[in-house]
């Protein structure tokens, strides 16, 4: 690629383009019809040159400065929905991205959200910039929701809470803080984990490695492997944990296992880093789904927690979440918060108001809050029923005796079917079932009516494809 990209006078005739002449080594700089050609050592010819007047337009570069850029591969998760849209088969099923669907397989906007938005419209609030750390009312209720309003971390003001762009944005703020203030510290992520976790830490230049998590033999948790790997990590590592409804497996530690995980993290002076994207959405209970985080907080540990309201309040595209850092003192929390602000300011200045106001209104109003809890129970309930139906269909149709009960043991929106890449491809290519290549299906995209069809597809892929 020519590094001496030139612009030449448009007045030159096309067949004897001065640019091509020069590139071919012909023509001379300073010749009359290339008045605006850049001449390296002669300082700036433009201020004095009278010939500029003849040139009405400079022909731009012939080669793009971005020519060498290659086409990036499509996002593995979000790309699934795009492929689904392009499929015209009427039997198609989108079990890709984790967005809740009704029994009619339609997107769902919660009633409380509509009510909150109408309230906001009536009030006619302004659209001024939020502070860098976000809406104060939102930050208050989000920390209380997560830790419990009566938690000492709240009353002692030991949590630095900054509104972030849903889960992703909150994770990113934390990742940058880690890179800046814990240089060289590693983050340990579960194997497998949400596909975007690695990208976030890579872009923030935080080194990461994996701890064993999923056991394909049991389609369950490899607890010994997990503990071993956390123990083996260098002291002071960050351990990324899914608060509930592990994505992509749906496999969560039991309460007893959580205690042991906390033990080993404390032993090694690691820092727990929770990703809480499904509080209330997993079991249907906000408190139950926060139990793991609260267990750690009750031990007096310092903790990072990223929250998202995409699923539990259905606010996907509003991008509302928070990063919470539990610190050992009020002053420490204030300092950490100030540094999180310094990270947000050069990224997007301050966060978007709309989603934050919706959350603050719903959580802050007792009637709306109760309604929300009911809607969440309804959503979680539908997913549990679909799991049951899928399990029943698989068990009755599959004569091999394979144990499909992991479908019932797993929790949340996703299920790790245990299908490998080829089998997952078969699901899509033969059965028009769209899912991610790691064998993950989103139960939220399934309804009772389609369970039998899905069971057929899974059985076929599992037994007939390797």
């Amino acid at each position, binding site marked *: 690629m020519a590094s001496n990209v030139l612009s030449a006078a448009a007045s030159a005739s096309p067949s004897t383009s001065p640019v091509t002449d020069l590139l071919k080594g012909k023509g001379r700089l300073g010749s009359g019809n290339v008045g605006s050609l850049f001449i390296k050592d002669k300082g*700036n010819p433009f201020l004095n040159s009278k010939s500029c007047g003849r040139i009405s337009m400079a022909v731009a570069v012939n080669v*793009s400065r971005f020519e060498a850029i290659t086409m990036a591969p499509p996002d593995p998760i979000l790309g699934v929905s795009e492929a689904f849209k392009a499929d015209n088969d009427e039997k198609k099923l989108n079990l890709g991205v984790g967005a809740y669907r009704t029994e009619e397989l339609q997107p769902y906007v919660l009633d409380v959200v509509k009510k909150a938005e109408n309230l906001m419209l009536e009030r006619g609030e302004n659209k001024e*910039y939020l502070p*860098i750390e976000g809406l104060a009312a939102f930050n208050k209720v989000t920390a209380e929701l997560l830790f419990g309003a009566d938690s000492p971390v709240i009353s002692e003001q030991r949590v630095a809470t900054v509104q972030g762009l849903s889960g992703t*944005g909150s994770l990113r703020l934390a990742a940058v803080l880690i890179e800046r203030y814990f240089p060289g510290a590693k983050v340990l992520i579960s194997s497998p984990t949400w596909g975007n976790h690695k990208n976030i830490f890579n872009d923030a230049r935080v080194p990461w490695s994996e701890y064993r998590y999923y056991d394909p033999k049991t389609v369950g948790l490899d607890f010994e492997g997990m503990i071993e790997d956390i123990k083996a990590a260098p002291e002071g590592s960050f351990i990324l944990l899914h608060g509930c409804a592990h994505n992509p497996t749906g496999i969560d530690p039991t309460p007893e296992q959580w205690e042991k995980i906390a033990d080993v993290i404390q032993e090694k*002076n690691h820092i727990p880093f929770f990703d809480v994207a499904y509080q209330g959405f997993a079991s249907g209970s906000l408190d139950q789904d926060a139990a793991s985080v609260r267990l750690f907080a009750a031990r007096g540990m*310092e903790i990072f927690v990223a929250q998202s309201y995409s699923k539990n309040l259905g606010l996907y595209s509003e991008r509302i979440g928070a990063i919470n850092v539990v610190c050992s003192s009020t002053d420490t929390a204030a300092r950490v918060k100030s540094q999180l602000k310094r990270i947000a300011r*050069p990224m997007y200045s301050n966060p978007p108001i709309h989603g934050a106001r919706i959350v603050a209104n719903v959580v802050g109003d007792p009637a709306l809050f109760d309604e929300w809890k009911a809607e969440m129970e309804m959503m979680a309930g539908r997913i549990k029923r679909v799991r049951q139906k899928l399990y029943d269909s698989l068990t009755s149709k599959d004569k091999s005796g394979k144990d499909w009960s992991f479908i019932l043991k797993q929790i949340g929106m996703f299920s790790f079917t245990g299908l490998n890449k080829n089998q997952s491809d078969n699901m899509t290519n033969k059965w028009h079932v769209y899912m991610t290549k790691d064998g993950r299906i989103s139960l939220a995209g399934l309804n009772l009516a389609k369970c039998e069809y899905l069971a057929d597809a899974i059985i076929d892929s599992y037994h007939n494809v390797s």
Partner: protein
Amino acid sequence: MASKSFSSSSSSSGCSPASDRRISVLARHLVAENALSSSPIYASPTSSANSVFAHIARGPEDPILGVTVAYNKDPSPVKLNLGVGAYRTEEGKPLVLNVVRKAEHMLVNDRSRVKEYLPIVGLADFNKLSAKLIFGADSPVIRENRITTVQCLSGTGSLRVGGEFLAKHYHQRTIYIPLPTWGNHPKVFTLAGLSVKTYRYYDPATRGLNFQGLMEDLGSAPSGAIILLHACAHNPTGVDPTPQQWEQIRRLMRSKALMPFFDSAYQGFASGSLDEDAQPVRMFAADGGELLVAQSYAKNMGLYGERVGALSIVCKDADVAGRVESQLKLVIRPMYSNPPIHGASIVAAILKDGNLYNEWTIELKAMADRIISMRKQLFDALHARGTPGDWSHIIKQIGMFTFTGLNSEQVAFMTREYHIYMTSDGRISMAGLSSKTVPHLADAIHAAVTRMK
């Protein structure tokens, strides 16, 4: 890194694991001071013992947004906030445009609307309409499909995504920013991975443009370097090149293959005309070259807190644009996955509806006119007081801000004695003024200039 002087292992004592844990936690707090005083990490006297964050110092307040923080704390009834650039009405109140309220009502009441994730690049309609707005509906770059436009978080987000893209994929990792420029620019680009240099811009002697310095500095920039250009209403000075000067800048830049990166935060807000304020960008787009432009709807649609903006990259051809777009997605996905829908939907609704669009242009012109009128009133008030100095720059400068030329001591004086809040570089937001408050400001400037040199 934090280090404990003991282990909480339950095998070391005869207690149960649970009580062991409780004792460990207690002991940690009791022994902490002694155990850790020798560790260099816990140097901060205010830190709590045994915090892994003990070494994290308090960050300073953002200099621009910090002005409003200080203003809010002031109890004086005559206080004036001329800090952050948010439009205020004649009554000193924030303004939500009528068209915005209308569009919002339409959106919220539309029962068919959902809140599903937007694509990584944002709302498609919004992107197309934003490109049309800045480049002009009949622009060759649009006709030739040579642009990729991605929705981003207002101006800041667009600049950051563009900067990160350039740092990853462009061969020249230096960006030149004007001196002075918006306080957040250097941080945005540094964190994006670019190295930041400056080019001369403001001439304090004339309170105008140092055109010669600008041309010299661009002329000596390495070939291919990125140049940040304020599309109109330069922030903080309000000093813009003339059309003729823009043409010379363009030619120089193209001859050196300098990559233009426009920051367009005030289209329509500066002169009152959307087309006029877009001329510099369109001039560059028309010559067939490549460029980046970050658009913000914070001011011209009053959508500040909704964080609506767009990054457009004009490429040589559609194929390059497609590849560039795919790489922009890789920048966005690990940052926030996909952008917020609300503000972009409002913008799209207004831009695509002929009546709403016309209403918008009228409201926009009214805002711009009010600011121009404030400039005139302030200039007249200083003239009437016989304030020493030439204050004509107040009416020559354009846009929301005026670079008064006051120094930081004079600014501090004005804050102390007259409760005027502004950034220490002497920048005032004309949008924060009203006919009622102009006299107070004029008094303050007069006092500052005559009493503090």
